[in-house]
């Protein structure tokens, strides 16, 4: 059968770079795994969400109703995902989420048609709580942008951290994408008496934050922890020396050692001339998931829909499977430290792997 | 000093002047008269390079003005006080006057702020008021004062008495007489017939875009026919 998959990603607007990375990853998966589909074939249709929920929804409708795609993949922003949820649920269109981490979409608002191969916001941050306590960090100051994802990330971390015996001394949410200057927050954090700072920042905000953290000399007295987008390989070079020693957790790090990752990184490097990011790997695995499901279905499109959530494989991120209770991915979370050498080159040293992290259903009822 | 010969000009398609000839000699006061809309202001605009001369020529001190830009005219000695006074409302009175600081023509014992205030004492009291706060008459004084600060050789005035109280008209008349005695050349456009003809040495009457009459201004006072026909008096 001919399978048509819509790639629904931001190609303009603030998250365009993420959209491009995910697309690149997806295409690489098609190259790696999609050569021998036999009687089947796979066509991709790309649409730009502009990171605007209504636009994303309109494009999703186009993909489903006009282009008649069999599945949609992509979605960077939680807001767009939230806008799409009811539509894909009602039209029974499988949506393979390749980034957006909104907890509710594999929690109380889960759907059998929403399959997430990226992460949930809670999943990435939860493991850091007990880990830090174990390492003797008892008091933490938190910072994150003031929007849904920021709150979910910090909540997940705070919960597991306090449950393990740590204390959140204070924290703040900074106006999302309006905060350029973290000086006041950093000054407050430094004066809070915490042992360390835990933050969620991504993109330009991450660069600004880490650099200013260094400028204020806080790196010398207060370690920085956070979710791994803070020191993403996409940005870490721009952060300079300040990123040295920052410990973060994420579902992927380029320095994971396994053959799949080696091949993935090598081939990605060959075409794009830079290491693949965590976004690219999510696109890659989303692509692979689609292809594996096609291969398992023998041309039966109904079977394909069902098989999507049954696919299991070991990829650059290690072993992956979809949790039948939530349709969220079950994956390893890597805790790693960023090292900046004298010459400015950066590397990530994996300190710990928390295996097969699975979200609690959080009110998810599949039907 | 100023020679206008065969001047044709207008606005876009519309011709207003069809060959105007006018001269102002050194130290002479000349008045240009005509009904509302006759083209008096238009003539002055052409002199100030605000309108291009479509035909004909304008010379100042012997040199043609065709290629001279408006903003260079003050440097060669032309100063224009327009009919709506051209006070800058967003500037204070002081700023309106000081504006000419860097553009005025430098001459020996030229006009200074002090001298201007002696001329129009009222302005000194209003120095820090906004240009738009002045009463109509005060604005007129300010406009003339500003024109004088440029230290012109030729002062061009467009209806300087409009909206002024008789006593101020009289004062301005006296002031202009003083300037005339001091040797300043003046080109004066007026509706106020008496004012203009008692001040000017020569008069030109504009009608239908052409000069209909010219001669010593004393003679014009006798020409009631010309007055009636071209000035509506």
């Amino acid at each position, binding site marked *: 059968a001919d399978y048509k998959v819509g790639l629904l990603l931001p190609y303009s607007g603030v998250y365009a770079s993420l959209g491009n990375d995910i697309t690149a990853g997806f295409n690489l998966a098609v190259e790696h795994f999609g050569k021998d589909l036999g009687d089947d074939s796979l066509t991709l249709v790309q649409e730009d969400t502009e990171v605007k929920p209504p636009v994303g929804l309109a494009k999703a409708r186009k993909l489903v109703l006009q282009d008649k795609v069999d599945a949609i993949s992509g979605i960077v922003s939680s807001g767009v995902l939230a806008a799409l949820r009811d539509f894909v649920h009602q039209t029974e269109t499988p949506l393979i989420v390749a980034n957006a981490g909104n907890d509710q979409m594999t929690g109380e608002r889960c759907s059998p048609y929403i399959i997430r191969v990226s992460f949930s916001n809670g999943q990435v941050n939860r493991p850091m709580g007990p880990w830090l306590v174990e390492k003797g960090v008892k008091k933490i100051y938190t910072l994150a942008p003031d929007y849904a994802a920021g709150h979910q990330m910090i909540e997940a971390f705070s919960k597991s951290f306090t449950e393990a015996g740590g204390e959140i001394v204070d924290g703040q949410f900074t106006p999302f994408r309006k905060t350029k200057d973290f000086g006041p927050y950093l000054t407050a954090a430094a004066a809070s008496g915490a042992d360390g700072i835990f933050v969620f920042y991504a993109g330009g905000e991450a660069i600004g934050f880490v650099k200013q953290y260094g400028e204020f000399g806080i790196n010398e007295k207060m370690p920085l922890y956070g979710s791994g987008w803070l020191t993403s390989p996409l940005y870490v070079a721009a952060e300079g020396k300040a990123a040295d020693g920052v410990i973060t957790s994420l579902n992927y790090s380029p320095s994971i050692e396994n053959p799949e990752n080696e091949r993935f990184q090598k081939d990605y490097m060959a075409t794009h001339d830079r290491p693949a990011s965590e976004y690219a790997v999510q696109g890659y695995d989303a692509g692979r998931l689609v292809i594996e499901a096609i291969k398992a279905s023998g041309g039966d499109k109904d079977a394909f829909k069902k098989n999507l959530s049954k696919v299991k494989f070991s990829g650059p991120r290690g072993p992956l499977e979809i949790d039948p209770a939530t349709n969220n991915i079950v994956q390893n979370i890597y805790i790693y430290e960023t090292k900046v050498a004298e010459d400015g080159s950066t590397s990530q040293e994996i300190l710990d792997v928390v295996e097969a992290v699975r979200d609690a259903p959080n009110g998810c009822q599949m039907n | 000093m100023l020679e206008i010969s065969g001047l044709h000009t207008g606005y876009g398609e519309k011709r207003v002047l069809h060959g105007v000839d006018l001269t102002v000699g050194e130290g002479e006061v000349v008045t240009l008269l005509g009904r509302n809309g006759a083209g008096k202001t238009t003539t002055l605009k052409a002199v100030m390079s605000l309108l291009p001369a479509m035909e004909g020529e304008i010379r100042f001190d012997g040199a043609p003005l065709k290629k001279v830009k408006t903003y260079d005219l003050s440097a060669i000695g032309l100063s224009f006080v327009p009919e709506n006074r051209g006070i800058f409302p967003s500037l204070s009175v002081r700023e309106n006057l000081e504006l000419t600081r860097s553009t005025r023509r430098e001459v020996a014992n030229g006009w200074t702020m002090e001298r201007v205030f002696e001329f129009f004492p009222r302005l000194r009291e209003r120095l820090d008021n906004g240009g738009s706060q002045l009463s109509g008459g005060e604005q007129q004084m300010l406009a003339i004062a500003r024109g004088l600060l440029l230290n012109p050789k030729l002062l061009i005035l467009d209806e300087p008495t409009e*909206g002024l*109280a008789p006593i101020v008209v009289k004062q301005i008349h006296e002031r202009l007489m003083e300037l005339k005695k001091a040797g300043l050349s003046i080109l004066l456009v007026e509706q106020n017939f008496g004012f203009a003809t008692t001040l000017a040495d020569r008069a030109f009457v504009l009608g239908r875009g052409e000069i209909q009459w010219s001669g010593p201004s004393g003679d014009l006072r006798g020409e009631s026919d010309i007055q009636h026909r071209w000035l509506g008096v």
Partner: protein
Amino acid sequence: MLEVIELSKAFGALRVTNNVSFKLEQGERRVVLGPNGAGKTTLFNLLTGELAPDSGKINIDGVTVNQMLPNERVRLGLGRSFQKNNLFTGLTVGESLRLALAIKRQKTFSLWRDGTRDAGIVERAEEIAGMVGLTTQIDVSCDALSYGARRQLEVGLALASEPKVLLMDEPTSGVGPDMTDAFTAMVGGLPRDLTILIIEHDLDVAFDIADSVTVLNFGKVVFDGTPEAARTSREVREIYLGDWAGDA
């Protein structure tokens, strides 16, 4: 009709209106004279409510209007024209006049009907256009009017607010001799019960129209009396007329 009691106004240290009092009976026509900057326009602005007085009282028809907004005073019957043309760019003469009438007659609320097209208003607008000599230009846009015609429309708008007391600020300034005559005739033709207060520098016009004269100087009333008395008053001569007036 209009009563002004000890009105004062200062801009900073400058006392622009200084204890001004006068009274206008219904149908009276009074001219305000005074050198430039004497505070004539300011007095108008105080009367219409565009400026608030520092002290003193303004009564219209026995009602104290000090606290009223300009638009409320218009409803009581105060209308004015401006020293500088203050017209509606882009609107025609007719549109402007009808709009003014509709405002005065409180026909501007409807979101559905076009009250400016009511028969009474259209007719009255045409009448007023006729009075100020703009009949032929009723459909001409204000921007296309000549200066003189604009001055006429300025007065027309004031008339269209159907005042009981009409204030006019230098209606003939910048207008040629022939049109000035027409203006004087027009005012002469206005209903006799209309009260008029007018600022004029053209003494022929002023004395032609006026029943009484007020002369301001430095914000103070320095003369109040008949036109004849004003002409011969030494003080008026000194501060306002100068010697020039005679031979102009």
